[in-house]
């Protein structure tokens, strides 16, 4: 059942939600839009197509405590961190980010289940938002994502001054059931106009043929990696803005009297100390690290997940890489050429 709410009334709805649970939404801070906890003072930016960081942080935060140790005399107290027990809502997730949650589920909810991630997924309600104005860097269509009708517990559409919402799950239903009923027609119109634009996106027709487990060694040994990676600075921008990157590192912080805090934090396969072991690193050059990232997204992951690519075409890496090196370059360079 379609529901609706005018933009004018949106703050009221947000206030209501935030009274009982944490509400996460795209918020502008110091000129940049990122998902953050909404408060009545926040600058809500539902119009922003791409937050700098993806929405994955709501379920897989950049830094997260996992356990605490404390020396007492000469014994050690161990306190595992508590998993989330409170509900929250993440509002305004775009289709690409929404798909990324499914990809992350395959990692974190597979055995052994990650309790922290699982708890967040259980308590989180995802409200997605259709993309009225997709951009030239968007290429989600290649991965079967419909930016006109994203998934999630609730799907929302912005039309002039009204937000239309449709619950897709019980969690979603519970969130919006009290809203006024809305019409289907404007939404259908929106879907149609978005669909038109989506068809015109310049990066629509990426040829992903050959990016699969069968061609693993062929891709791995492709001589083009070196030149592709030459400009790579080895920073973690692409991985940290990426909705599907899921690597993390586990670190300890010695807080003196307060004991030792063990936490996990996002890691990047672009970093020189990624999977660093006692003997050193197994990917000593940036080319190898670079190859790892794309082999994972385009070959290893689909090989293990029924052909599902670990990329949702959000295009953040296209916009944010300081040297304009990204997955589209890789797909085009290593992939099958149209005229082949």
């Amino acid at each position, binding site marked *: 059942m379609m529901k609706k709410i005018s933009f004018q009334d949106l703050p009221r709805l947000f206030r209501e939600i935030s009274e009982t649970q944490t509400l996460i939404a795209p918020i502008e801070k110091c000129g940049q839009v990122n998902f953050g906890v909404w408060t009545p003072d926040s600058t809500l930016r539902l119009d922003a197509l791409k937050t700098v960081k993806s929405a994955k942080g709501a379920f897989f935060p950049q830094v997260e405590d996992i356990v605490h140790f404390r020396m007492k005399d000469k014994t050690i107290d161990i306190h595992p961190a508590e998993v989330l027990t409170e509900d929250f809502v993440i509002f305004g997730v775009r289709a690409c980010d929404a798909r990324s949650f499914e990809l992350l589920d395959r990692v974190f909810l597979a055995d052994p289940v990650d309790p922290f991630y699982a708890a967040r997924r259980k308590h989180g309600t995802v409200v997605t938002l259709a993309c009225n104005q997709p951009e030239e860097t968007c290429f989600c269509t290649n991965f079967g994502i419909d930016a006109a009708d994203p998934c999630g517990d609730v799907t929302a559409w912005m039309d002039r001054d009204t937000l239309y919402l449709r619950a897709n799950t019980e969690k979603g239903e519970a969130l919006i059931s009290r809203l006024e009923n809305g019409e289907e027609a404007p939404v259908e119109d929106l879907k149609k106009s978005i669909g038109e634009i989506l068809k015109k996106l310049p990066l629509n027709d990426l040829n992903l043929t050959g990016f699969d487990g069968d061609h693993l060694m062929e891709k791995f040994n492709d001589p083009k990696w070196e030149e592709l990676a030459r400009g790579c600075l080895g920073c973690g921008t692409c991985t940290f803005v990426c909705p599907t990157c899921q690597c993390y590192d586990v670190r300890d*912080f010695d*807080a*003196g*009297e*307060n004991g030792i*805090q063990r936490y996990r934090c996002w890691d990047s396969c672009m970093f020189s100390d990624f999977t660093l072991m006692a003997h050193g690193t197994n990917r000593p050059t940036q080319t190898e690290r670079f190859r790892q990232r794309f082999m994972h997204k385009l070959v290893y992951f689909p090989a293990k997940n029924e052909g599902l690519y670990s990329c949702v075409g959000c295009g953040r890496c296209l916009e944010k890489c300081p040297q304009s090196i990204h997955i589209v370059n890789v797909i085009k360079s290593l992939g099958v050429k149209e005229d082949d």
Partner: protein
Amino acid sequence: MSVNKEWTPNIVAFCCNWCSYAGADLAGSGRMNYPANVKIIRIPCSCRLNPMFVLRAFQRGADGVILCGCHPGDCHYSTGNYYARRRMTVLFSLLDFMGIERGRTRVEWVSAAEGAKFAATMNDFVKTVTELGENKKLGDLRCKK
């Protein structure tokens, strides 16, 4: 041991081995009083003070950091304190630029003969930092008691 008492600042004093550490010793031999919350770390020369140590101290709960070294011209290594002087000037200015209270950092030249100056400097620095209150801007929440 620490019974409920009013807040006092935690001060880290880096002292060069040749002048200021000896100056602090002289303050001790002269039984000159300065607050117990000043704790001295011995470094070979004021030029050994890495800005990292200053920030580390603030992170771990220091409310003020002071560097004491030989008077310019008297450095045991002849030039160390000249480098320290520039380094600390640039660092302090940067901290100030980031909004950290100016009074929390200080450099003072104390010779081995200046026990009284050492004690007076510490008393004054503790007073300044006490007025500034707790270091909230550069602390690490994880290290707070």
